[in-house]
């Protein structure tokens, strides 16, 4: 039933890493249109492989607006 279930054709398909305007990451089936507000990063891969890459890419989970605000405060 779930996306991770091997029965789902989606689970077996190719996936992509997506990132939104806030710098939050997720994954999305490569065959489907990328939803507005998200950009695709890198080539398609299995779902598991995409998630593994995200584990390294998304080291700072603060939204980008907060990061910017905090940097400004530190600088001032």
């Amino acid at each position: 039933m779930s996306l991770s279930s091997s029965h789902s054709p989606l689970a077996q398909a190719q996936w992509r890493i997506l990132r939104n305007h806030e710098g939050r990451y997720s994954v999305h089936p490569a065959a489907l249109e990328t939803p507005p507000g998200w950009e695709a990063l890198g080539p398609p891969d299995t779902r598991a492989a995409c998630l593994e890459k995200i584990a390294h890419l998304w080291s700072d989970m603060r939204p980008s607006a907060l990061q910017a605000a905090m940097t400004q405060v530190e600088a001032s």
Partner: protein
Amino acid sequence: MSKDLVFDTPPRPASARRLEDLEKRIFAHEQVGELAPFCPETLILEFDDRFPKPQIENALTLLLQTHPAFTARFEHRPGGEVWRHGDARYPCHHCGHGSLADAQARSTRHQPTVMGTPVHVDLWHTAGGGHILALTLHPILADDAVFATIEAALCRALGADAIPAPPDEAPNHGQSGPQAQNLHAWQALLDASAIARVPHRAAPVDNGARLRATRILPRALSDHIRTQGTEDVLATALAVVLRRYSGLEAFRFVLGTPRPARHRQSGLMPLCVTPDPAQGFAQTLHHVAQSARNGRARMISAEQLVQDRLGRQDADRNPLGAVALHIMAERELPHGITRHMRPTPPLAEEVVVMAQHTHDGLHLTGDAEKGLYAQAQIERLLCHLERVITAGLERPDHPTARIEIVSTDELDALSAPYPDNVPVDPRATHEIIADHARATPDKLAVICGADRLTHGALDAQANALAHRLVALGVGAEVPVAIVIERGAAAMIAILAAMKAGGAYVPVEPDHPESRNHHILNDAGVRVVLTRKRYQNRLPAQMSATVLCLDDITDPPRGDAPQVTIHPDQMAYIMYTSGSTGKPKGVAVEHGPLSDHNQTTARVYEMSSESRELPFLPFSSDGGHERWMVPLMVGGSVVIPDGPLWTPEQTLAAMREHGCNNASIPTTYLQQLAEWAEDTRSAPPMRLYSFGGEGLAQSTFDLLSRALKAKTLINGYGPTETIMTPMVWKVAAGTQFEGVYAPLGRAVGDRRAYVLDPEMMPCPQGIVGEIYLGGTGVARGYVGKPDVTADRFIPDPFGPLLDATCGARLYRTGDLGRWREDGTIEFVGRVDLQIKVNGYRIEPGEIEAALLAEPLVSEALVLLREDGAAKRLLAYVTGPDLANGPDLLRALETKLPRHMLPEAVIVLDRMPTNANAKLDRAALPMMPAARAQGAGVTAKGPTEEKILALWREIIGVPDMGVTDDFFAMGGKSLLALKALAGMRKYWPDTALTIADLFDAPTVRTIAARIEAGGQTGRTAIALRATGTKPRLYCFPGLLVSTREYMRLTDYLGPDQPVTGFLCHSLNEEKTLNVSVEDVVAEYVAHIRAQSAGEPVALLGWSWGGLLAWEAARQLRDTVDIRLLGMVDVCDLGTDFMPGVTPQFAAGERAKLERDLQLWLGKTRMRPQWDRLIGSMDAECYAQFLRFIGNERDSLPFDGPEISSREHTFWVLIDNALVFRRHRPAPLDLPVASFSAGDSLSRGLNLMDWRKLSPRAAPAEVVAGTNHLHIIGEARFHARFKARLETAWES
């Protein structure tokens, strides 16, 4: 003015014939008084003024004289055989002037009957100078295919532009192989496919009513469908929709299929398909069309297939399919003739979809069982078919799984949150709370034990602590652990952490140390706020600063630290208690938190008058919502000063402090309500909110009744979607359909979705996974970006619905379905969902059905692996529970067959392991009794003999003297064998099956035999006691009375039931007893036992004739409230007096020789001689004919009871008994029930209305046969209803 025309030319002679299968079935339906699913068929044609009156009348005359439908006459011969002759003449009725409405009204009033007038022909003159012809025929004569030939014949006779007559043979109706081979192929195909259903309500009402919806497709689309092949397109669309609805991979539905016009057949074929959702519509169409062609190439009659399926114990009530599709053939009429009405196919399936091309476009009609469906569901089905066809034909290569069957508008309405247009206050939660310290500083804010804090004091104390935290370096994104028990101090600490800009991390001091240490390390806590007494529970090695409240003496201060809160800044980290792995920290930001709290306050209608008692722990996020929200609106909270208040304490606190709302976990709320109801101590309250687990209707009713609050709110939400993202807010006393109370709809800037595995929205009623999206979701899991990306996915709907881009959806792992009103119903957990025979099953639904039974306190449903087999088993506990089979039978009436567990196993308690978790391995696989014998050894020769005999008969070598014969697998026939065997040892002891019933173990029956004089009874108390009058059950031939046990269980503990034994199973009986004598013993028993009380009698099969005779003998002295008759057949043609058997030349002499040869060999010679000697000449001839008709040779394995020869002898003897018996008319209430299969076989069922003026037409129990009807829950439900009415009369 009207006159009946009689035509004087003689009809064309036609030879008589026996009825075909479908005709027999329809006749049987009429015979028992229940024609449905058949109905009188009407064709209405209008002729304009280009057809003058004489031309029409002449054409009609010719039609009525020559068309077989108008010349048919039926002859009912003794034994139930019906012949069709072709020599009848029916008049045309000239009705004068009238309109279409007049013609329709008149034809609806006609009630054609087979033996009376099966044909009504009405001719009207229209105002425009034309004519209207209305033909109303009994379904035995005509269906749509027959009307096609009538139209063709009529047009020919009119000399109008000839229209082609339908072909005599249907296309593709090849008979490529022998029937047996074809049946075999179908069996394999049906075994491999599940029955697809349109999901329906859980507790169906089985009353035969139907509902109908129609939809007209646009012209252009209809034309496109026609060019692609209407049947192929519709069947493909139905396959795609049913796959989406059911999740089945290999399934079937019924396809109405053309049939030769000269034969009457039902023309139904199961269409077995395996549509691949990844393929496009074009490829799927190719697959479906191929499956239909393959099916037709080996088609056999639907009746034969149905009978084959119903012979199985677990047959579905719609064995070919539960959804049917009929394409009504297009039939052009000559200019000047219009068709206003034509027949529909029989409406026997749960859902029947009909498609017919018209000038407006393709008409889709959905006709469904009203007890199962709501009108809107069927309208939606038609709409989904149209959407799939439109999308499929537009983009034939687009995967069918991606076709949108839920429109954007519908999705918008279904997913929408509670309406709320108030602008959001951009400030953080604690800033809004601080407002009230300035506005109403002296107003009470917190009551906790002896503590009383005003808004002003709360704020001032939090400010003081906040300044200290800032000094310790707390700021944005810095986690501050709160290791303090629930109460005012913890609230001050939390507010202080937020005021300092940090994120609070609640830690319950009483929780296991390992869990708490994990939280403190994992969250990266920099400061720990705690008390001295909890200090030793903190990890030894910790870099965080520990601050004990006991050490702080800072004076309260009015000013908060100058800290700006960014909306993306973390407000708190809440650890979830996942079922597997270590707890994960969920980080929640200030913006969505404050937004959530503000909207929640409005949905809950909170104000500064609100005083809430939150009972939820601070280790759950809901516990914090329920103190923050009242304080944000200037209200107050009463925090329990201990974790475990009794219901009495809680209610007292509410009353003492004048609470007007309370938020309480569902489990505790039930105890509270029970206490309040028992003691009538519920304080007046405006609102209760609750949540945490599924809430059954019975619990909800209890809350409504006992707590006397105006409003109830069921809250739902994973921590990841912030506190309570969904609520169901209703007035107390609301009724909901379904297992659990709805979860409701989303709150705030969120939407709730139910999506299928392809992330496509599910229509209402279809189970999918619940997703929550919008801005009101958590940031994610602390330190776990991959897990966060896995569970929080890009929201594809936000841009469509709200123009919000880049939002995320949280995958809850919970299963639900949208209800009609757009609220979501909880169904179960994704990871617990299982598949059995292709069907998706939610164990939670079965568990809930079990928990709804009064005695069940715990229920667990598991799919267990038992070697290679997978078994669905239910485990229950309850202090007064004894009987698993009873519960299983209760489930049968509530759940579809594919959801029934193999067994319900009663346990003293659920087995647990050392960690107090359920120990699955310790759960027994099957009820203990059936697993193996207890093996207690025999004492004494009587026990030894019986045990050896039983072990051999049942085949259980380790059976012991205390094991139950029936529980060990002893069936009726084996019981007869056991009796025969025991009679050999003790020929002087009268042993009946009643003895085995009452004393089903070796030990108990041995005691009976040894005691002597206690055996040989013919009546068995199936249920000895009860408050209602007694029901007496009469057995069919050669069956014990065990068959009535399931019914007895169903009727419940108040209904006493006695079963009688079949006389053929009794001791050596005298030859040629009369029915009167057979019954005399039963009558004496009833008369003695009833003692002035009313009774009801029930007879199944031939037992019905016994019950009837018993009623005749009893009627003057006993108050008989009801005679129940279950599938009772009269004698067939074999032995019916007056039926003269036919023999071929020399056949009779040969049969007599065979008989003599056989009599020379059989050991039952004396019995046969006596039996044959008692036959008269007609009966002897019938006997010879009967032997001649038998496929197998005569058996000589007698005389043991249960041998084939003995059974044969009993059958003939019984036929002779009933041959001499004719049931007499009686004026008694009769309720009769017929098995659908008996009707389809055209059995000679009794029409009790001919014998009693108070007999109702039979109720047809579809999808069961003569043997299985007695154990069928749908029969039980109907009989129970009739019996209860009878007792009330």
